């Protein structure tokens, strides 16, 4: 398995994402939810709950996890893993903040598309 070099794409200002909230980025591979935590960390994961495909970007964000709005599965923003008794995982993408802008690593999004 190869890891493509990071390809940082500026997707918007940090202030465009509410604290303890998320915004969606449309990609060729579907929607990615970009979260901002209470302490201003950002995380990007697929916007589809592994359970029934619920939009995770609309869930309540607490600490570094989100609760899916459809059936209350809790997904870790760091690992993409379902928490507690539920089993499942969503893809995660590297994201970071630089000078108030949110950068998303789109290398894997592009790579998966190429594959």
């Amino acid at each position, binding site marked *: 398995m190869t890891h493509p070099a990071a390809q940082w794409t500026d997707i918007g200002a940090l202030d465009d994402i509410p604290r303890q909230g998320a915004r*969606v980025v*449309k*990609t060729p591979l579907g929607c990615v939810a970009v979260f901002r935590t209470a302490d201003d960390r950002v995380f990007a994961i697929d916007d589809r709950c592994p359970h029934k495909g*619920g939009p995770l970007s*609309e869930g*309540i964000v607490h600490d570094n996890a989100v609760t899916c709005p459809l059936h209350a599965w809790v997904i870790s923003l760091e690992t993409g893993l379902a928490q507690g008794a539920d089993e499942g995982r969503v893809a995660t993408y590297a994201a970071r903040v630089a000078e108030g802008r949110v950068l998303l690593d789109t290398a894997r999004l592009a790579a998966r598309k190429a594959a």
Partner: protein
Amino acid sequence: MAEKLVVIGAGMASGRMLEHLFEAAPDAFDVTLFNAEPRGNYNRIMLSPVLSGDKSYAEIVTHDDAWYATHGVQTRFGEHVTKIDRERQVVVSAGGETPYDRLVIATGSAPFMIPVVGRDLPGVVTYRDLDDTNAMIAAARPGAEVVVIGGGLLGLEAAAGMQQRGCKVTVIHLMGHLMERQLDPAAGYLLQKALESRGITIHCKGATKAILGHERAEAVLLEDGTVYGADIVCMAVGIRPEVRLATDAHLQIGRGITVNDQMQTSDPAIYALGECVEHDGQLFGLVAPLYDQARVLAKALLGQDSAFRPVQTATKLKVTGCDLFSAGDFADGPGREDIVFRDPARGIYKRLVIEADRLVGAVMYGDTADGNWFFGLIKDGTDIAPMRETLIFGPAYQGDTRTDPLAAVAALPPEAEICGCNGVCKGRIVQAIEGGAVTLDAVRAQTKASGSCGTCTGLVEQVLAVTLGDGYARPAAQPMCKCTDHTHEDVRRFIKGAALKSIPAVMQELAWKTAGGCASCRPALNYYLLADWPLEYSDDRQSRFVNERNHANIQKDGTYSVVPRMWGGVTTPAELRAIADAADKFNVPMVKVTGGQRIDLLGVRKEDLPAMWADLNDAGLVSGHAYSKGLRTVKTCVGSEFCRFGTQDSTGLGIKLEKLLWGSWSPAKVKLGVSGCPRNCAEATCKDIGVVCVDSGYEISVAGAAGMEVKETELLCKVASEAEAIEIIAAFVQLYRENARYLHRIYKWVALVGLEWCRQQVVEDPASRRALYDRFMVSQSVYQKDPWTEHARPEQRAEWRPLADLTLEAAE
């Protein structure tokens, strides 16, 4: 005949003592109360908010003239006692001689003035009483230069208050770091940094040499040659017990007036309490031990057994928003070890001092949530060896030691209200328990606490547990969620009783075990806060469930449904056209008539919501809140206007009710029905609130259900006029909003509190009904607004679209 009791000094300690005395034996003494200040007892701890302008004097008065009159206290305020004649048992003052059978000295303490040149100049003040505070407020022009000498608690509060009033403030502190008696150097440093970031200049290791000035204070000169300009100099270097009267009377004196365990001085007829006494070699400055002394002295005066046993006290201070906690002994020493936790980015510092596997001291800055837990370990001398590795992370990390929900109850002040229905505060309950009421029923019988709606039962039990320790076996209660051990009811009580006005404040004060709560507690807390503090709290959108955040119902495929309000189920051709146009324009896959007499547009994409709302708004339609824990619909039949059986205008009443109640948030959804006659075509008798019109008026019934459970409503009352019906229904909704647990529908809540109690509040007691109605209207003044209009503004629309669209770039 009643004995003559003379009290010198009307401060917090003697005031509390008199309260105990009058409660236990209202007629045992004729009380004469002298006070050097020309006023009675006020809450001295609250002078800081008075200085900063956050509170007025009137708000901190503990005993007003009426209180003294009620208890027959002869008040001699503004009159100095100049001498105690023990031989003849009289005190001497400007007004002559006053005889006593028993005398209580409560002269408190006096500020310490450092003996430097210029200390007598006008413009040099101390910070001890209301007159000092007023002098400082009078001098506090914006831009005025203020030098505070002394970086202890009082000095820093004075500095913060003056800074808040726009003054340029410098604090001069003799020691190497601020508040050295409560804080270690690292915490002192963090505090200094925080105050400096607010614009206060801090000069540590500064010894004052002289106060310079001709007519009045102009500057402060330090030993190292530094000069600070000063329009006002506040001396706050410390206090000493005020013992002059006692010294002149040849009572036994140490640093303070020597008292025994019954607060008795060396003269058996004379007692003393408060900051002026010395007990067992110790002086007292914090309020908790003074209140203990007050209780002991009241009993001693009544000839009852009681002994003062000073307990260790912790200091939890709020200095201009800097969270500090210290307890025990934290000096370095042989055999002592430290555990230190630092998070510089968040400004958090915690230090635990351990000696022989026991915690002996704790200092915390920035995050003090676990303070009471650590304090408990210090007091109890708990062996901490088994939990040493995770000790500093607090109770949440101790596998077998659950967070102690009692800590928050223990920390509540005695005046915190526990039972809202009967106005019973914690202090009264503790008193009852100490007087022998050791069961819930006994407390209920004596104080009425938890005797009405019963929602504070859990809290009363916790007060029992705190007061009796292991002697009380508490039944287990269901906590709100995994983030806390408190029940919903307790959390609501705390929000009101401790005036908690934000989600972080609730989580901090009630020792939440998780960092940001969870999807279960956050919406509940957001509701409780906005319901209890409509004017102060601002709604936290990120703590809302998706439907309430986006003002539309999310469907299984991530699209939304849009339901405009149709008042009382009545619409017009123009509204129907606008709805049809919107359905066409946004390709709505399904248009459906709902059970609540309105129209649902299903399958709308999120990014289309604002534009669709704007179109519907243009036709005069507003959100139907079909997604909210709030007022949903008022279903009506056509009533007397068209129906040959109708007895009243049920449609009109339904519209009036919907226009009054719409927009209000509640613990769960609220649906109403109004039927024009007992045939009940609007199915009012299975709604949360139903009105059935009859010839003679309106039958209001409540607590119906037609969901997972089906239940007929119960009759609340019958009234003659529409106006009465409307006021009672609004008051009932407010009673529900203020008291129910989040997600409990009305029928579940009524089952818990009883319909009879509701009836007392909203039917039988007109004053209570009016107050509820008024509080409802206050809330409506904030929350009755159309969310569509708010979110459909052009500048807001970007928020509803994706942040970025990378599919476009990929296509290039």
